[in-house]
């Protein structure tokens, strides 16, 4: 076993576990967004940043950093709270997150994080991009205005369903998730219509068609349930 400290508490973890896993086992909360149980971690959103005291206070994403003997991790501090809030504000400023009319309002991980981190305002100018809604699919739709590019849909589609329909298209601020290299969803032949992307999406971007404001509830835990039920071979 590896022994380390998180927020001053002694914690034990198995080799190969991440700081996030060790913290969760010890009952220490670290907020996450792009991380989802059942999918491989990618450390892209930076909400789970923690500070390693004996690495000169270096900031690392807890979801992809493995535990090491003797690490002293700060998981919660005023500095981290401010940094996480700023990360969140950048996400809000980047696209059009209008909770008041969103289908996921009340069931949204981004909204929950804003409450948890006390984000009562956004200090960056909003970009207000005019992005399209693809409602071509008979069961689902994607509203890029609400996408945070966490990539959970991309990973759920390839790692759990094995369809590899979703991928990233474009660069930097113009990045969007896209089915089958950028065709309208209805034309994506690889899509099995399983809906795992809907369940994986933390916000109101990929949703069931026909849902009205605040109506879209999701079950992201279904992905880990599926992988756990799958026979191991």
């Amino acid at each position, binding site marked *: 076993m590896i022994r380390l400290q998180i927020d001053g508490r002694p914690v034990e973890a198995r080799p190969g576990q991440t700081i996030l896993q060790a913290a969760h086992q010890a009952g220490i909360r670290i907020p996450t967004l792009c991380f989802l149980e059942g999918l491989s971690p990618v450390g892209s959103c930076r909400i789970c940043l923690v500070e390693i005291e004996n690495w000169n206070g270096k900031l690392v994403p807890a979801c992809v950093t493995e535990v090491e003997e003797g690490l002293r991790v700060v998981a919660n501090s005023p500095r981290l709270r401010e940094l996480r809030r700023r990360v969140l504000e950048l996400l809000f400023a980047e696209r059009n997150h209008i909770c008041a*009319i969103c289908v996921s309002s009340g069931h949204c991980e981004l909204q929950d994080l804003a409450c948890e981190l006390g984000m009562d305002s956004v200090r960056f100018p909003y970009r207000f991009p005019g992005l399209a*809604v693809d*409602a071509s699919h*008979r069961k689902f739709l994607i509203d890029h205005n609400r996408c945070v590019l966490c990539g959970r849909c991309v990973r759920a589609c390839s790692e759990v369903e094995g369809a590899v329909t979703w991928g990233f298209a474009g660069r930097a601020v113009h990045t969007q998730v896209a089915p089958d290299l950028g065709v309208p969803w209805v034309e994506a032949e690889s899509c099995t219509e399983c809906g795992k992307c809907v369940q994986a999406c933390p916000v109101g971007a990929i949703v069931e068609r026909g*849902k*009205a404001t605040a109506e879209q509830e999701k079950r992201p835990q279904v992905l880990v349930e599926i992988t756990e039920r799958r026979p191991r071979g």
Partner: protein
Amino acid sequence: MKKIKVPVTRIEGHGLITLQLGEDGQVAEAKFHVTETRGFERFCRGRPLWEMPALTARICGICPVSHLLCSAKAGDEILAVRVPRAADKLRRLMNLGQFVQSHALSFFHLSSPDLLLGWDSDPATRNVFGLVEERPELARQGIWLRAYGQRVIEALGGKKIHPAWAVPGGVRSPLSPEDRDALAADLPRALSIVQDALALYRGHLDDWAEEIESFGNFPSLFMSLVAPDGTWEHYGGGIRFVDSQRRVVADGLAPARYQDYIAEHVEAWSYLKFPYYKEAGYPEGLYRVGPLARLNCCDRMGTPLADEALDEFRALADGKAVTSSFHYHYARLIEILAALERIGNYLEDPDILSPRVRAEAGINELEGVGVHEAPRGTLLHHYRVDDQGLIQWVNLIVSTGHNNLAMNRTVLQIARHYLHGREITEGLLNRLEGGIRAYDPCLSCSVHAVGMMPLKVQLFGPSGELISERARP
């Protein structure tokens, strides 16, 4: 020509009045400018149809329910479904709750300070706080009555303001038996409050004779929905126009074909459009909507207490149309009474507890029109969508828009009656405000605009020079 400008308060939104003096020193022209714009019709484009009820509800915090229901009705048309019976009744129930809360707000909170504290009393206390000082019991009752209407809305939609409860195809949930019982238990108190207010209003008619005579008292057309049998209607039915003799000018008009009989005129000096009855032309096609129009258009109210009240109301004009816009206040109180009686009827109807409240369907029509009566008058949402159900085009005609011509005519009448000389007096300013307030206009809704703005009045001389200006901050 000389011009006067006046700012208006205690209305939803803000406005500017300009008065133009002629060579003879009389008011030649009066304009009520709506100086806000918001652009809802533009930025709804591209949004999924299913979001439209909650999205358009955000036009206003006073009448979100009106936009919510009207938008859901337009959505029903696009899904091409018949809304389940229970959902139809539940939507009506919520609209009646909206009538109670909105009318109570207009009468008790916004207008009764003018009516009861006096037109020339100090503006610093001529408001709901002054009312609480002078007439605490009346203020308390008004606040309670409005809260009752809000409770109806909350019991159905889960919250008082901006409930996202009505959806294309129906509603999300029925009423719970507990909420039904709680609302039924308090209904008698609500009825008694509005009956007291009606008695109070009738008792003051002589005191307000001059205002009744001059606050938008002119012959005009009136438009509203009426039920197929001619009864007062707030949610369905067909459009009826009557004239000031209460002769039916047109009846049973399909709300969805509004473009056949209503046209919209645009003036450069206001963001608010000027709808008119097409057949009569502009501006002769001036018509009024809202409580006064609904009472003038319908044959009867359809519930016993409201029908008695309607008889007394009709006696004001010997059975012809009541043409003074001052009596919007009177009509509003009668409509609260009617709404409460109907709420009582629905609370006894077992259908409102039914779980079968939503018809699900895809995009089966590419165009839909929803029309119903909002507290302030006939409300219309018209959408076009693409095959995916994304909004391509939106037209909203709201009650304050319908009344735009009438409000301008009212302002002119009041200015002619109360402007003496070249000075905008406090008394004139108060009455100009009061005349507009009689319509309970929602400028936020009408231009789909935002914020509370004071009214400003400017008086211009015959050659265009500013003579006098008065504003309420």
